[in-house]
């Protein structure tokens, strides 16, 4: 089996998370924002999958199980996010989050 070092994998996931964060902080388009969130989320899932192997055989797959749940959650989140995008677009004619500075619709 593979012997990928913890450090290399963590470095990868950290980089991906940072990219996601960077996107969240700088992008103004709501869909881009969602994509950035997805990238960050995938970085987390990657960690779960990797470390699933370290917890012994009896619980060997609970990390993967969590990953499955997270994938489901992320998909749900995209669905709700897109619903918000649609609502915003209908309300304000724009999906630029700079236009949505008040909580009320």
């Amino acid at each position, binding site marked *: 089996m*593979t012997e990928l070092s913890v450090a290399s994998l963590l470095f990868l996931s950290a980089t991906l998370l*940072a*990219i996601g964060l960077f996107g969240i*902080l700088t992008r103004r388009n709501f*869909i881009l924002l969602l994509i950035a969130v*997805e990238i960050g989320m995938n970085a987390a899932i990657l960690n779960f999958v990797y470390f699933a*192997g370290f917890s012994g055989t009896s619980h*060997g797959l609970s990390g993967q199980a969590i990953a499955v749940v997270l*994938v489901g959650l992320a998909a749900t989140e995209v669905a709700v996010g897109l619903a918000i995008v649609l609502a915003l677009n209908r309300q304000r004619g724009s999906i630029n989050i700079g236009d949505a500075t008040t909580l009320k619709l």
Partner: protein
Amino acid sequence: MILEELAFLALAAIAVGTALLALLSRELVHTILWVSVFFVALAGLYFLLSAPFLGVLQLGVYAGAVTILLLFGVMVTRKRIFAREVATGIGPVPLGLAVLAIIVLSVVAASLPQPATPVRSYDVAQLSATLFGVDGAWLIVLGLVMLSALSGAIYLVREGRE
């Protein structure tokens, strides 16, 4: 072994690259194309980490469903699908924060000791046993979350709401 190391490096490079391209691209549709490649690269990584079930899931849910959903979102919110996004400069604060985060997390990663050889067993039956657990509690919770998200989404986009 060296082959797998090389594969990891290649996939990691693709993932980082496509993620960056996706976020820096000026055109939203290009972004979505890049991010679908990113999802596929991650699926490859999961296969490499002997989690083929998750890999398949990643391909199906992310590279398939989520990408389509995002495209759909772009389609219904835009008059012209291939429109350029208004350029946004990268603010110093977010950039600094992102870099800082990378540094911190890297330091953490480097400071962790290398644990014993991981067990890389692949057994879908065991995974499903874990996933369903006692009375399938996880799945039920996930289902409830999805249900409430679904009703919330319907509420948000329903007609005649003003």
